[in-house]
């Protein structure tokens, strides 16, 4: 893991399964889920559904949405907000791909560290 200005390099993008997610624990803070959509975009959310704290990383990813594995809440990967009739929001962490590497914004990734 290395630092590129405000961004942390967390690994090559080919380590993310298509239409899937992997986890990024933050020591002393909230675990982050890194999502990979069908068209190759990456997104990052705190790995906790706003409903009952289900691990969103284990949900089914479709378009820019993840369906929580515990009770099927649908969460937007773009805004972190619950969709449909549900209300709640999970923090979004800025993430991007640069030269085949996944970069995550350092300050936001560490925001939950007490």
């Amino acid at each position: 893991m290395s630092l590129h200005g405000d961004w942390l390099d967390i690994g090559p993008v080919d380590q993310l399964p298509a239409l899937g997610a992997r986890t990024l624990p933050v020591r002393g803070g909230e675990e982050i889920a890194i999502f990979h959509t069908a068209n190759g975009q990456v997104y990052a959310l705190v790995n906790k559904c706003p409903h009952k704290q289900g691990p969103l990383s284990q949900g089914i990813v479709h378009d820019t949405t993840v369906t929580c594995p515990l009770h099927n809440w649908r969460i937007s990967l773009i805004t972190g907000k619950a969709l449909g009739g549900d209300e709640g929001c999970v923090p979004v962490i800025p993430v991007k791909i640069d030269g085949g590497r996944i970069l995550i914004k350092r300050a936001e990734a560490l925001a939950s560290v007490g």
Partner: protein
Amino acid sequence: MACIAGGAASLDAVRSTCKASASCGSCTGLVENLLALTIGDDYAGERDNKPMCKCTSFTHEDARRNIIGKSLKAIPQVMQELHWTTPDGCASCRPALNYYLLSAWPGEFVDDNQSRFVNERMHANIQKDGTYSVVPRMWGGVTNPTELRAIADVSEKYEARLIKVTGGQRIDIFGIKKEDLPAVWADLNAAGMVSGHAYAKALRTVKTCVGSEWCRFGTQDSTGLGIKTERMTWGSFMPHKFKIAVSGCPRNCAEATIKDFGIICVDSGYELSVGGNGGIHLRGTDALCRVDTEQEALDYCAAFIQLYREEARYLDRTAPWVERVGMEYIKSRIVEDEAGREALRVRFLYSQSFMQDDPWEKRAAGEDYKLHQHLAEIRPLVAA
């Protein structure tokens, strides 16, 4: 009522507005009655055979027919050919399509792990805290000291927080982290145990009583028949979970009359019954027929399972499916049509020839490690 008065005029609208009928679904009938009462003649009712989900106008039956008719063998192909309206479906249609492909082309379909629910993808049962529980198979509910020792050892080694005997006569190990699952499975494999598929829309358990080998009332070897049944059926994915039980006499200690397929041993043979369920709507099985031999009991079981696999909609348990198609139909296919029954049995065993690999063994050997290991870990620098 308030949400119907506020304009929610269909089951879907009620579900998304006030959540009624949106979880387990047991109040769906009540909500439909309320809709009819409140809206009156303007309530069109729900279509008997609805589209699979909001991604398509095709019904489950349409999709299946096309998968076979057009020789479709992968999800993206199905979505393209059938003009799905969403780029990659949703959490409702993708698991269904994956099952229909598996069922239609067991040796050729392209399995999509990302279209399986978390439990099937992880080969374990997710719990409310995000950890998993692990259930090794115990054939017919029979175990031995080696297996029990291995379960005790992995429970200590991986700090399981609960060891629970299940209703299906096996042992559930709770509180295992996703990163530890492959190592837990390797240890259980080493003691000769395989996945119990307690997490899958698949054959779960074959519950048995001790039968004629021990019990003074037993009429046949129900334990032995249960083990044979489980050896034949394990690993078979289905529209929903599937439970079997074999009782050694009509006292029915294995509770065979609330299983998807029940066998009750009698002096003159084996009473077979189907479509039972001990869940939200308690339903006793309907009698299928009586057969003379163990082999016939196994053959009818395979044929019934295959009929269910080929014709029920994804997420239909056998109970609602049997009610929808009727026992007359089931009997006409399984009991009265000998050639048809044999063809179903052969198709089931063909499918099983691709399905009876232990998924734990592959994971323990490193397959799909990305599903278990973290991508990386962030360790903030701490001031000394």
